[in-house]
Every structure is written in C-alpha cells, then in structure tokens.
C-alpha cells in the first residue's frame, strides 16, 4: 500500500514534560491504523497537533501528505485548517455536537447550509443529511430530532457523518479519537460496520483506543507510543494481546512504592451497592491509613466513582458511609461534615473560584473558623491560609492574588490546602496531578503519603498508572461499571494494573442509551 500521510521527527515539549520525542509515523492509504499507548504516552498530543490544537516544538517535525498528489506535498503540522483542506478529518472523543440542534443543523455547521435565494433550503439539507448518514449505515437516525435526544451510537454516527461531509468521494484520512469510550457493545458493532464501509471506499483511518480487543478486530496496523516515542509499528496479525501490552508498558516494571505505612483496622469508607452514572453496583471499603487507588480506562466507571461518592452527581441507589456517617445522596456538604474532603478532577469548573484570592480559596469550606462574634478576623484568616500556603509551598505573588493567576500545579495545591485544612478523616482525590508538572506532582504524592500516615483513609482515582503505583497501598481496577480486580502488595505494579484494565472487555451493553 502506498503511504497517505508520513509524519517525521515530530516533537512536542510542554513545560516540565516531553510529550512527543522525535516521532515518525506513516499511515498507508486505505488502511486502518491503530494508535495505542498508556495515558500520557503522547497519543492525544499527536492527534491534537494534527488537528491544529497544539503547535509542534522545534522545526524538525514535518509531514508529507499524498492524498491529492501522488508525489506528495508538505502538510503544515499544527495547522488544523490546512489539514482539513487536504482532507484529514477528526472525530474527537467528546464528538463536539451541539445537542440542542438537529442532525441536519449539526451537519450544516461544518459545511454550511444549502440555500436557495439566501433562504435555507430545508428539503435539500434533509436529503443531504439522510444521504450522509446512510452512506455509513446510520439510516435509522431521525435527522430532524435534536441531537441530544439520540442514542450514544447515533451521536457518534452524526459526528462521523459530519466529519465526512463534503468529501465522500475522495480518498482521505479520518482520525477517530477514542470513539467507543462511552458506547455499549452493540453500538460498537455499529461503529465498526461504518468503519468497514469507509475502508471499502478507500478512506484511511487513524484509530486511537484503549480497547485492545477493538484494535485487534478493526485495525490493519498498530503503532505503539510509550513516553512520547514510537516504540513499534506492526501488522496486527503478527501480534497478540500480551505482546501488545508488553510493547505499551515496556520491560520496566514500576513496583509499588507508596510511602504510606501499614493500614489501621477502622473502616472509614464503606460503599455498598453503589449505582448511578455508569456504575452498576460498586462495593468498596477503605480503612484508616490506607491509600486505595482506583484504576480503569475511560468509560469503565473510574471517572464516576468519586463524583458519586462525594455528592457531585446523584446516585440512583446504594449507600455511602464516611467515618461512620451515612452521607446523604448528592450532598457534598454532608460529606464534608462527616469528616471527608475531596479534590475534583475538574479543577477549573468545579474547583477554583478564579477571581477570588488564594486566601479566600483556601478557607472557603470553613470561613467561620476565623470569625469572632460574627465578624471575620481577616488577619487571623490570612495567618491561617498563610500557614497552608507555606506548608504546601504554594507559589503565589501574594496570598491576596486571585487564584486564577497561579499555575495549574499551584492551583491544585491550594485545592489540597482547602481540603487538608479540614483535617479530614477521609481524603478523596480525583486525578490529583492532572495537567501539572513533575515537581508539583511529587509534592502532591508526598502529601498523600503524609495524610495516610496521619491516619486518614485516602482514595485516589487516576488514569495515570504510574501515579497509582507510586501512592496506592491497594489498587482496585474498574471495568464496565464494576470493580473487577483488586491488587495488593507486589501485585501493585504498572504491568498488572495495565493488564487488568486493558483485559479483553466483556461489553455486555448494559450501559444502554442516555
């Protein structure tokens, strides 16, 4: 097969982190090319550079595109519009659909409406939308319904149709970023059917996924990224699951090295039959001094466990007992009163008060502590917050600076200070070091060790396997909304965790539509 897209010497450096290191990648025309790797291996950075969301670092990185000209022509990396013009299209994980608009309208947002005398020609647009969906096997979608009312698979279909609109007949490249993360089993079949049809028409597909069974089913070739480097590109026939996992993880086995001491006997977190979001019955007990890591790929339920535990989203059934108190459903305040504290995964949306000062952000959960006869003693409050700013070495121009002016890592430390200030018995952390640099990461890991040693029960949910290995004294692995594996002692290492979360998934389709 001739090459369609050839990427050479692509590098990307973020502050404190090399995301891509001299990566070459060739995608052949008319093939499905899977891109796999652990979290943080550089997959999404590569996709985002192709899509123009990030710029490559340095000037060595170049790409040659053979879609329009057999001799090849250079493609500007980091220029999303150039890629789009040349026929590279993307379906990102979040799909990017406007839920309140109909399928017809969503399709028109990318490619424009067909008009007659300046008026939208609805009939022509409806016909075009139906045709586009039929071409990939989604005839069943009612194109006049708001996209928000469609089933997950149908939404994926609409996103596919939109990406393909306008160049149905050219041989080009479609990039699918984790398209199945939130799809039930029968819908995955449907998506694969659409992919096969596209392939028959000569469209090349770059398929990013955590689901290795999908890779084996749909891909012709697979490239493995590890720590920002391309480790291998192989035909899938020449690989099996174990070999692929080995390529992803490498031979280095990072062994558990939590700094937490032995656990106590007292059970401080007791979760029974918790249902809600995409959890289908989770039981979990955490004892004092324990650090329980929660692992699982996106869609496994890992991302929902802490929001449900801490009352960020309502659960549909089950009980949560924290420090001996049954906490009310959907009540973060009750969690805090019971002696829990938590840091959410969405720092910007659910964590910080961007325009309020570092001091105000630190003390918000218990402002009254520094009040005397109803009046806030602001000096005492500054001293209170200042002590935490020092203890966690938060770097800020002044304690009065708006928290929005701090770096991500320092904002995260302030959110830790907010929780630790409550002297919690139970600390629940969702992606505690997401998007922060290596130095701040280790400081936060030390804080987790220290909290456990002081007798708190700690729960850490993370997509970063190395992080779980670093902090956890026990790891629970989630799949399909259940905890399926528990790892303790020597079993806490990167290989075991990856194996457990990547194991062939039994997609029984229980998390059906909506």
């Amino acid at each position, binding site marked *: 097969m001739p090459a369609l897209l050839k990427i050479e010497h692509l590098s990307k450096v973020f502050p404190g982190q090399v995301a891509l290191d001299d990566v070459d990648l060739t995608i052949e025309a008319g093939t499905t090319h899977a891109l796999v790797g652990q979290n943080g291996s550089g997959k999404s950075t590569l996709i985002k550079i192709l899509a123009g969301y990030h710029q490559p670092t340095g000037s060595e990185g170049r790409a040659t595109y053979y879609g329009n000209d057999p001799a090849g022509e250079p493609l500007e990396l980091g220029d999303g519009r150039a890629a789009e013009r040349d026929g590279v299209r993307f379906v990102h994980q979040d799909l990017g659909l406007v839920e309140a608009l109909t399928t017809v309208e969503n399709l028109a947002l990318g490619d424009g409406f067909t008009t007659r005398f300046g008026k939208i020609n609805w009939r022509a647009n409806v016909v075009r939308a139906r045709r586009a969906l039929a071409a990939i096997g989604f005839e069943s979608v009612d194109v006049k319904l708001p996209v928000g009312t469609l089933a997950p698979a149908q939404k994926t279909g609409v996103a596919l149709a939109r990406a393909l609109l306008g160049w149905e007949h050219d041989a080009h490249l479609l990039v699918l970023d984790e398209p199945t993360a939130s799809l039930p089993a029968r819908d995955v079949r449907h998506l694969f059917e659409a992919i096969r049809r596209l392939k028959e028409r000569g469209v090349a597909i770059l398929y990013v996924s955590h689901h290795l069974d999908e890779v084996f089913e749909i891909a012709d070739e697979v490239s493995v990224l590890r720590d920002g480097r391309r480790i291998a590109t192989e035909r899938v026939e020449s690989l099996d699951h174990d070999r692929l996992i080995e390529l992803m993880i490498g031979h280095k086995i990072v062994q558990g090295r939590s700094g937490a001491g032995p656990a106590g006997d007292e059970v401080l977190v007791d979760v029974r039959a918790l249902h809600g979001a995409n959890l289908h019955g989770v039981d979990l007990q955490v004892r004092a001094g324990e650090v329980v890591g929660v692992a699982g790929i996106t869609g496994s339920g890992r991302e929902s466990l802490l929001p449900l535990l801490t009352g960020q989203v309502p659960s549909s059934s089950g009980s949560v007992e924290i420090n001996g108190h049954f906490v009310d459903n959907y009540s973060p305040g009750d969690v805090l009163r019971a002696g829990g504290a938590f840091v959410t995964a969405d720092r910007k949306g659910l964590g910080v008060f961007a325009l309020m000062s570092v001091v105000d952000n630190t003390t918000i959960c218990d402002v009254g502590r520094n009040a005397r006869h109803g009046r806030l003693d602001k000096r005492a409050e500054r001293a209170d917050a200042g002590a935490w700013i020092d203890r966690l070495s938060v770097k800020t121009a002044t304690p009065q600076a708006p928290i929005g002016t701090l770096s991500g890592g320092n904002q995260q430390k302030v959110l830790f200070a907010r929780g630790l200030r409550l002297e919690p018995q139970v600390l629940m952390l969702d992606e505690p070091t997401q*998007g922060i640099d290596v130095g701040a990461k280790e400081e936060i890991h030390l804080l987790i060790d220290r909290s456990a040693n002081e007798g708190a029960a700690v729960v850490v949910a993370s997509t970063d396997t190395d992080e779980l290995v670093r902090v956890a004294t026990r790891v629970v692995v989630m799949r399909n909304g259940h905890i399926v594996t528990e790892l303790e002692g020597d079993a806490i290492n990167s290989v075991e965790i990856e194996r457990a979360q990547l194991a062939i998934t039994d997609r029984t389709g229980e998390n059906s539509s909506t």
Partner: protein
Amino acid sequence: MTTTSDPVRSEPDAFELALPSKTWVQKSGLDKYSALYLWAGFMIVFSLTQPQFLTWTSISLVLTEKAIVALLALAFLVPLISDTFDLSIGMMMGFSIAITTALAQNTGNPQALNAVIAVLACAAVGFVSGFIVVKLRVNSFIATLGMSQVLAAANILISGNRTINGVLSDAYRDFGRTKLLGLPLYFYFVMLIALILWFVLEQTPLGRYLFATGGNTDAARLSGLRTDMLQWGTLVASAVLASIAGLIHTWKVGTYSSSIGPGFLFPAIAAVFFGASQLKGRPNVWGTLIALYALAFGVKGLQLTFTTGTAWIEPLFEGVSLLIAVALASRQGIIKVPKRRKRDDASTSAAPPGEAATA
C-alpha cells in the same frame, strides 16, 4: 497575556491568567477609581462655572434626592453578588407604596402597622420568587421579570388604578421631614443600611459564601455551601430592601402612583454595574454608592448649566457613563490576538515551503 511569544505554549490543562504588566489605565487608577475621578472632575468644573453648584442647598438636594435609588441599588446588589438577578425591585417598591397608602386609605390601622404589613408582603413575594428560581429552576432573570408583571397587576388591583394622595398622617410623614444636620433622617437610614450590608457582605462568613456562590456556583456547592438557600435568601433580602425604599418614598412624597417603581430600576441597576467596576472589580456597596452619587452630581451640574429642557440629561448621562466605566474596567480582560505568521523566522530555513497551505 501579550508579553513574550514563547514557542512552547503552556501546558494543555493549565488555566493561567498571567499577571499582565500594568497598563496606563491601571496605573492611573481609571479602572478602579473612575467614578471618583469623575466625581472630582464634576465638582471642580461645575463649582467654577455654576455659582449655585457648590452650595449646601444643591448638595443636600442631590444627597436626599438619590437616597431612594441608592437603597434600590443595594437591593439589586445583594442577589447579584450570588449571581442572581432581581428585576422585580422597581415594582416591588411600588407594591410597598401601594399597600401602605391603600391600607391608610381604607383601614384605620396605625400607619406603622401598615408599613410592617408592606414589608412582610414584599418579603413573601421575594420568597415566592426564590421558590421559582431555586425549586422550579427558572432563570432568575426571567423569574423576576415575570414576578415584576404580576406585581404590576397587584398594584393596579390594590390602588384601584388610581393615584392615592393625602391619606398619610402628618405624624407618619414627619419621618420624611425631620432633619439632622441639614439632611433628612431617612438619608442616614439609607447610609446605615449600606453600612450594615457592607459589614455583612465584606466582614462576615455569610458575605464570603455569597461571593463564592456568585463566583462559581458549582465549586461553592462542592465546598459544602447551600448555594440554593443562599440565592433564595438574597431574593427575600432584595424584596425587603425594595419595600423599605417604598416606605421611604411614602415618608418623602406620601403619594402612590403607578409610575413610581419602574422608573427607579434602571438608575439602580446602572449604579450597581458601574459600581462593580469600582474599588474591587466586583459588585460592592461603596462602589455602588460612589458611582451613583458621582453621576448624580454630574447631572445636577449639567441641569444648572442648561437651564431649560433638561429632562434628557439624566438618562443620557447615566447610560453613557455606565458604558464608559464598564469598558474601562473590562480592558484588562481583553485579549490581544497577535497576527500569526506562517512560522517563526528562526525556523523558516529548516521548514518545508509553506505554499501548499496557502489557498
């Protein structure tokens, strides 16, 4: 945000508002103290050009004339801090006046009792607005706009769609006539309320919780705050404050007419938003009052300058100064987007030619 063009963009998830170097607007204080500048400017210019301007008569007149709008502005301020709009305060004030005067007209109640009834009735309406916003999940802007029309209807029913005049006793009206140091008592009353609100909003945990709710409602809820109850409470508070504004109006003027309430709404809202750009960069009590009185003195000076046909001055002035003040305060939030070149000059030699990408 516009300083160095680092080739490495910041980390993908980072949410950073780098402290920009100070602009001339910030150095001069025009962003945070523009109303004070304006006020000082008016005082200087008009005291030089208009001999009557810097007299106690006109100063005390401006201070007392604007006391009711000032209180109404504070009524708008309290819910706004928790990110809740109350557009019904104008009609609420009219509602309070209608109840007080209609009860005086039709019953033999002591007038103090009538006033208490008016305040309680307004609080009840505020409670209903809160219910609609918090429990029925209606956007506060729409809920209070709707409530405003309901109150308009209530006012017509209560007053019989007539102006109510001369029904209040002299003893009651004396509240509005008694002066202390040349200013009526109610002026001090409004200032006292402002002082109390400042204390609650800036000096107590409750105030902090309200600002947090307004700053990021989701994060506030996850910090254990009952954001829904806080917002509900602010709507009751704004209703009570608006009802007191109505009472002051009955002391001062003593008349109900259907046109009273709504006309006060815009100046009150304008003062809050203009005031939000003052001192703190967020809605606050003293900024609101400074903005209000700076404009009031400007209007007074202009009215003295153009002696005839001056009705247009006030709305024009209020509108334009609101726009200018908020624009000045927004300058730091405006991101300058530099033109992007194809590639940094340093790397052109190593890069492949970029013609392919230029259509």
